[in-house]
């Protein structure tokens, strides 16, 4: 325990700053020199012999003076070391800023790479998706022909105002379609009439053509134009002239808005 305490004391004494030791020694020198001078002055005035006290003070003074000189030497050397430490601290600061700069650049590079990798992955997903749902080019061209053949994207060259043709299915065409005819099936069977719209439109689906006597009759009369079973064909307007007349006639009775828009 004592050894540990001595070690601690020694360590504490050793760790005392040089400045503190210097000031303490200087104070001792001041006090001792004052005492010595006062003692000498007193002994001269009173002419009393001193038992050697002045010698003790003198010895102490010499010792303190020597200590002071050694401490000043140490302080000068510490000053030189301090300069070296300042230079090293500057170098450390410079290295720190270099490392920070490098960190920033690496971070930027990481961000750029991460973005590029993400985009590449997304592209690969799209490619895989497209590959799975691939369609032959012939089919796409076929559909393109179909769409353009029905004049859905551009009016026919000979279209004039008054032409009942539209780029969308008209009321007449919808009613003459499969759904329209299915809902009217029972009614048609009773009275044997199709709605005039379907007749006027002239676009009856194949499925209904053989089923009703009036249909076949219409076909035989030549009122009905050839059905567009041909995917690429569209009947020229001349063939539908009779239908146009019917449309004109029917449009006066029906509430179709297609002819109104003429």
């Amino acid at each position, binding site marked *: 325990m004592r050894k540990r305490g001595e070690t601690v004391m020694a360590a504490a004494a050793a*760790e005392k700053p040089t400045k503190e030791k*210097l000031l303490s020694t200087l104070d001792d020198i001041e006090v001792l020199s004052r005492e010595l*001078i006062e003692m000498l002055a007193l002994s001269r005035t009173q002419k009393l012999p001193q038992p050697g006290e002045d010698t003790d003070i003198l010895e102490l003074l010499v010792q303190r003076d020597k200590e*002071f*000189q050694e401490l000043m030497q140490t302080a000068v050397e510490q*000053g030189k*070391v301090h300069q070296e430490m300042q230079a090293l601290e500057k170098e*450390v600061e410079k290295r720190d800023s270099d490392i920070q700069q490098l960190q920033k650049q690496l971070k930027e590079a990481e961000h750029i790479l991460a973005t590029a990798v993400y985009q590449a992955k997304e592209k690969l997903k799209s490619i895989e998706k497209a590959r799975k749902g691939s369609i032959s080019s012939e089919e796409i061209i076929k559909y393109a022909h179909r769409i353009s053949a029905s004049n859905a994207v551009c009016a026919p060259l000979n279209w004039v105002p008054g032409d009942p043709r539209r780029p969308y299915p008209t009321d007449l065409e919808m009613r003459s379609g499969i759904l329209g005819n299915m809902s009217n099936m029972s009614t048609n069977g009773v009275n044997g009439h199709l709605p005039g719209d379907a007749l006027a439109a002239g676009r009856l689906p194949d499925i209904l053509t053989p089923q009703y006597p009036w249909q076949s009759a219409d076909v035989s009369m030549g009122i009905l134009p050839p059905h567009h079973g041909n995917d690429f064909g569209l009947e020229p307007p001349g063939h539908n002239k009779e239908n146009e007349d019917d449309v004109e006639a029917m449009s006066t009775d029906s509430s179709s808005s297609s002819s109104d828009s003429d």
Partner: protein
Amino acid sequence: MASAVAVVEEAEDYSFLPIIHDVIKCMDKDSPDVHQELNKLKTKIQEAREQIAAMPGIDMSPALQESRLRTLREQVQTKNQLLQKYKSLCMFDIPKPS
């Protein structure tokens, strides 16, 4: 020899004994310069205090200062090695944003 003389002179600069000796000599001779010498002593002590306050690097003990110096040297060495390691990696040319 010159350096030894310089060291001795430097040691005498910080010594108070010569001035104390002058004071005692004046007292022995009953010289009127006693007060002047005493003032010199006081001035020298005061100057020494001011010099001590202005000296850099003496706020710590020599042992502590040595250990801090060692630490700083190690820091510089480590950071130099780190920078060297990073610089030897593959660097990218990052285009500056226009």
